[in-house]
């Protein structure tokens, strides 16, 4: 029960900071699943932190989606990074 309350509080704090709900819930669930220690107090383990730095095609797709969704990018430039080569 305490864990559910913690999760909800974390999601709420992220939402209030401006993170969208899908990201907020995904991040909190991911931390709970992968942390392996005191999730409320300790940083992520060092080996996990190192592995997360690796960059894949999936990360690029995620970044592309984030660019498209960003309110800082005017509509006319949403597709800029999908430019074809010429």
């Amino acid at each position, binding site marked *: 029960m305490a864990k559910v309350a913690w999760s909800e509080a974390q999601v709420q704090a992220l939402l209030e*900071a401006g993170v969208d709900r899908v990201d907020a819930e995904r*991040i909190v669930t991911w931390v709970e699943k992968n942390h392996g220690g005191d999730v409320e107090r*300790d940083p992520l383990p060092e080996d996990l932190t190192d592995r997360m730095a690796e*960059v894949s095609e999936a990360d690029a797709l995620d970044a592309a989606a984030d660019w498209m969704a960003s309110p800082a990018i005017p509509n006319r430039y949403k597709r800029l990074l999908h430019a074809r080569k010429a």
Partner: protein
Amino acid sequence: MDFLPGYWFDLRTHRYHVRLLNGRQQFVARAEVMRLLEAHVNAKQDLLTGITQQAIDGRLSPSVWQATMQQELKRLYLQNRALGAGGWDRLTQQDFGHIGGRLQSEYRHLRNMAQQIANGEVSEAQALNRLRMYLGNARREYWLAEREHRRPSAPGKAIIERRRLGIADHCDDCVRYNQMGWQAQGMLPPPTVNSECGGNCRCSLDAKEIDAADVAAWIGTKR
């Protein structure tokens, strides 16, 4: 060449182009690309400031703060690199490797900071100062990608670069780089690197292609 409506990137001029709905084609001004870079980094700064504030106030656990920061920095590194390279299609496994190496270092710093937040050892001012440094490093990806992906279009051609001071207070280092005028590609550090202002740097780097035979005549000039 025939393209679907939308953007394309000219490898020769290193410029984005767009076909408008009326069929006209035009290039995207470099100033517009710079505005996009700034607007996007500033928006991320607002987001990360809010997340960090929640962590300092004790409402967000250090682990969740760390995971969120890592995700947002990785996105920003990739987006800035794609913007500088000419789009997602231009990114290679080598680009991913470069970003991964730099992120590994940043993530270790973030982990230390998460521990310091847990211990109550970081003030708000210190946290925001570090945040600016992380964002400055992410901004640097644009300049690095632009340089690494821009090669002379033909034998006998060469790329030269010069530092352009941004709208900000300038540190002595940036002024010195600006005074060096045009230099061969790679001679000047990208904005945010090797300068006192670091992540706060708002300078840019102009680049142009010239005949290789003319390089000596351009070096050091400000024309």
